[in-house]
């Protein structure tokens, strides 16, 4: 009997310090290092959209944060190429969480990869601030508001602006050219909903493999549909090649071509001659105001290219995260997430941005029109801002949310 009591005492003595230290750990920073990871496409079709530029942006965010807040903790940055493969991405992230002590992962472009990484992040109770993937599934069917923030844009926000404006101009019949994976499907679905809601009609669509080498036959199908608008539900190199082929085949003379996810990187690559007059939604433009210009010029000096909205978003995401860690003094997921949800976001990327309960970060978006070559005064001077879409209208309203965690409340 005595023996048993002694044993229990010894055991509890062994247990208590462990529990005690675990408690103490939760209230400060694990390993005294905040580790941020950039997971992106470094070598494929989207490498210019995110890629190295996102790493540069994250580095800038860390630099600026250190200069401003002089934090007591160390900040580490790691990055990896997911090659646009969901399995490669989720394995890398699992390794980061399990063995490298990564606290937050950002960029994560490519919706297929992002959905897989979101699952791992939730399972390991870490944080993913997605700046690159567009699928609205991340805040709807696959939402994980305790672990995932959807930061820059999504397929709803991208589709909403140009679609409603064009239908008002009488361009009410649509044909979709869609990248055949999660992102393209999501973009097509959201755009279709907006077309129908505004009284337009969808005449058809064609789905092409990611990274297709030739778009002419898909565009020929779009041409024979006689739709007034040909909407490109694809991105990166696919969008670029679609626009080029559309010009070559004379599509642009009789039909309007709308890139639903077009960025300044694409316009720069194709040139103003072939893209003038195109209208689409952007989350950021370097030449909006003094703050965006200053920040973008700094980015340009390091990366030799102006930032895409992903780059600016990655900068803002890392800053927002670090500020929350600084304010709460911990890298504990729940505490940091709560702080981020509670704090409005004001920086070069967003003014009055807010993270909603479904994980969606809402901020103003911009409906832009590509300038004529004659209007462009300097390199990268590409857009006329047609309209600022206020945060409340830019993103899908909470009333339409399909996120189970939010619906339960």
């Amino acid at each position, binding site marked *: 009997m005595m023996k048993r009591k002694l044993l229990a005492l010894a055991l509890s003595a062994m247990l208590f310090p462990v529990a005690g230290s675990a408690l103490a750990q939760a209230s400060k920073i694990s390993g005294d290092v905040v580790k941020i990871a950039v997971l992106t496409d470094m070598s494929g079709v989207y490498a210019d959209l995110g890629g190295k530029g996102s790493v540069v942006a994250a580095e800038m965010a860390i630099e600026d944060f250190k200069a401003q807040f002089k934090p007591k903790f160390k900040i580490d940055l790691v990055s990896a190429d997911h090659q646009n493969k969901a399995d490669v991405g989720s394995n890398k992230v699992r390794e980061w969480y399990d063995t490298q002590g990564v606290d937050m992962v950002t960029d994560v472009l490519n919706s297929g990869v992002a959905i897989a990484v979101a699952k791992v992040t939730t399972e390991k109770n870490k944080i993913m601030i997605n700046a690159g993937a567009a699928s609205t599934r991340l805040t709807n069917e696959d939402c994980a508001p305790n672990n995932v923030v959807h930061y820059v844009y999504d397929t709803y926000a991208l589709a909403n602006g140009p679609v409603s404006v064009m239908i008002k101009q009488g361009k009410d019949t649509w044909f979709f050219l869609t990248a055949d994976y999660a992102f393209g499907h999501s973009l097509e679905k959201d755009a279709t909903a907006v077309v129908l809601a505004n009284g337009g009609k969808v005449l058809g669509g064609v789905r092409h493999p990611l990274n297709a*080498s030739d778009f002419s*036959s898909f565009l*020929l199908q779009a041409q024979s549909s006689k739709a007034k608008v040909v909407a490109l539900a694809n991105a990166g190199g696919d969008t670029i090649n679609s626009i080029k082929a559309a010009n070559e085949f004379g599509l642009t003379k009789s039909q309007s071509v709308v890139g639903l996810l077009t960025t300044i990187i694409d316009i*720069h690559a194709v040139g103003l001659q072939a893209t003038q007059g195109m209208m689409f939604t952007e989350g950021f433009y370097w030449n909006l105001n003094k703050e965006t210009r200053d920040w973008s010029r700094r980015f340009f000096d390091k990366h030799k290219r102006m930032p895409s909205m992903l780059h600016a978003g990655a900068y803002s995401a890392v800053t927002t995260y670090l500020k929350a860690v600084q304010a709460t003094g911990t890298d504990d997921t729940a505490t940091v997430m709560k702080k981020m949800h509670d704090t409005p976001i004001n920086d070069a990327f967003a003014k009055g941005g807010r993270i909603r309960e479904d994980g969606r970060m809402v901020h103003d978006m911009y409906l832009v029109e590509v300038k004529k070559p004659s209007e462009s005064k300097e390199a990268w001077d590409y857009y006329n801002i047609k309209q600022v879409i206020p945060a409340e209208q830019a993103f899908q309203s909470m009333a339409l949310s399909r996120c189970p965690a939010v619906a339960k409340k």
Partner: protein
Amino acid sequence: MTEIFGVPIQALFGQLMLGLVNGSFYAVLSLGLAVIFGMLNIINFAHGALYMAGAMLAWMGMEYLGIGYWWMLLLAPICVGLIGIAIERLMLQWLYKLDHLYGLLLTFGLALMIEGLFRDLYGVAGQPYSIPEEFAGAFNLGFMFLPKYRAWIVFASLSVCLLTWYMIEKTRLGAYLRAATENPQLTQAFGINVPLMVMLTYGFGVGLAGFAGVLAAPASQVGPLMGSNLIIVVFAVVVIGGMGSILGSVVTGLGLGIIEGMTKVFWPEASATVVFMIMAVVLMIRPAGLFGREK
């Protein structure tokens, strides 16, 4: 309007035309591969990267030196050919006696390095290259709107293929080449410089890739990924046609371009895989390829 499986016949003609255009690229590229494999026994994985280099050279000539399309159509393949000769002299020539695998690994590594270099220098979004003025505009064929440049692609590729075939099958030089492939020792004994011929063959083969690259430059975005997007399909074309068969690779290239074009109409999602499905079937029925001979 007449329809086939719900697709207007006009649209079908259009797609046939486009299939022919893509098939032309397959034909020129797989021809280069077939020539190299036939003569050198090397599976040249660097082919796609050199095709891309051809396009990049065309763009660089225009951007930095102001050299137009027509000159680059001549100069870029020569430059690529010279790069090829350097590769052959410095590296490949040591591998002929070894297993195919070594040549494959070496050229694959080279491809990654060439691509990586351009990716690092210019990014992946690519550079715009405009269509030469002579070919601006399009023919209205009634059933479709065919850009003049695409028509030129078909004409230029087929001419080059025909010329190559003629040179190898009908000229004295071609006869030497074929002899050198069949029995290098014996050919050498007749006083023919076999290593020189092999070197020139490799240079010519990759020069063809460079030529296709320049042809492709105005039709698509000039970027570091354009080769790797295409090369796997081209390998499938060579396997289907029969490794080393010159006529086979041209005919299969065009044929598969057309089949792929048709797939884009009836089942677009499968258009990236249809070539490989055909490859699997062909390998089951004729392991040496459609035009290949069992050794």
